[in-house]
């Protein structure tokens, strides 16, 4: 996978989160992983097509998802990851992916994104790539959001 394709996703996260009332997030680290990821509790997958094909997965703990949903809803308490909070996280994933898609367009790549697929639970693993993929751990006010990216140019 081309490392240059990762930046649009990181830039999207860094640009979008402050618009929603968060302090600017920072990149903690980036690692290469093989095939499988374990769910941390809340996993959102968004697919890419056209000149870029692949998936991006936002993986976080239930507590982080509730913190994000609460901040997005002006500090409203989110004691449970309910329908409204799920909707907030799906919407966020959509915004992040659409923003990344815009960044990719500026690199000359025409892309389209699927609807986000939100999955809840801890007892499952996710395979997003036949081989290796990149995982970026983003720090968001002390919470960790893992962005797993497996995308390739489609010739």
């Amino acid at each position: 996978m081309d490392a240059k394709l990762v930046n649009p996703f990181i830039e999207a996260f860094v640009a979008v989160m402050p618009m929603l009332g968060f302090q600017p997030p920072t990149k903690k680290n980036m690692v290469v992983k093989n095939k499988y990821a374990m769910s941390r509790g809340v996993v959102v997958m968004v697919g890419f097509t056209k000149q870029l094909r692949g998936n991006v997965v936002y993986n976080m703990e239930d507590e982080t998802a509730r913190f994000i949903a609460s901040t997005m809803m002006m500090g409203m308490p989110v004691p449970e990851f309910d329908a409204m909070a799920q909707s907030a996280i799906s919407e966020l994933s959509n915004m992040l992916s659409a923003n990344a898609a815009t960044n990719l367009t500026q690199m000359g790549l025409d892309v389209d994104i699927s609807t986000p697929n939100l999955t809840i639970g801890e007892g499952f693993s996710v395979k997003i790539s036949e081989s290796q993929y990149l995982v970026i751990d983003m720090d968001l006010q002390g919470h960790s959001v893992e962005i797993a990216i497996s995308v390739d140019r489609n010739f």
Partner: protein
Amino acid sequence: MIVDDSKVSRTMLANNLAKTNFEVVAMAKDAAEARSLYEEHSPDLVTMDMNLPDADGIECSRRICAIDPGAKIVMISAMKDAGLIEQGKSAGISAFLQKPVSTNDLIDTLMLLCQEKISRIAMLRESYAKPFAAALKQGILDLIGIQVDTKVELYEKKYLEVNGIAIIIGLTGTPNGRAIVYMTGDTMKTFAEKMLNEKLEDEEEAHEAAEEAANIFIGHSVSSINGIITNKEMRITPPGTFFGSGVKMTTQKLVTFKITAMTDFGDICINVGFAEGD
């Protein structure tokens, strides 16, 4: 969902609706219960009484519309005047009926409010969900040589719960959405063994076979849709595979259909969802 503080009124309405194709999913006796039951059931329609013990029907409707701006609410009250209608409309109420309501008036009003949704669902079922069922049937025949029956149902639960394997393939274009091919671990293993014509020891091989099959099912579905509806090209993303138990996938903001292929070693299913709106 019926909102009415009087048990007699709730029962009468429920009895009227029992004669129709509408199903009562919840009954609330006050505004607080209405809000929480609305969140729990996301009903297609709400009938609203004006007099509730903790708030009036207009305030209750306003609270429901705050959760779901697309809520369809019919006010059924003893009084019906211009002032009430004006206030009600600004609170998000779609229609007004006067008590006692005849079954025919009630059905006509409810049907009218549902029409938009019903016709979109019918369109999605015919033009989009059915090609998935046909591709699933043909795919199973091509891959393992078995004739299966398939059925297509509207899926109205909030979650799809999977124990085993779920392969998600995103759909882009118009309409966009996602398709999930899923089955239990045992069904997957038998299916993979029939597909490869050998005993499998390694679970990963079974995953790969299931992924390959999912790609074929969904790829053929989309090709067939694109072949008929030529101005809105749909594309598919590479698969993402989830496996484990109690995997809960939300169906929020999607119109979803469950397509089941029944085999003697278990069901092979596709849950295909299309984004709401156009």
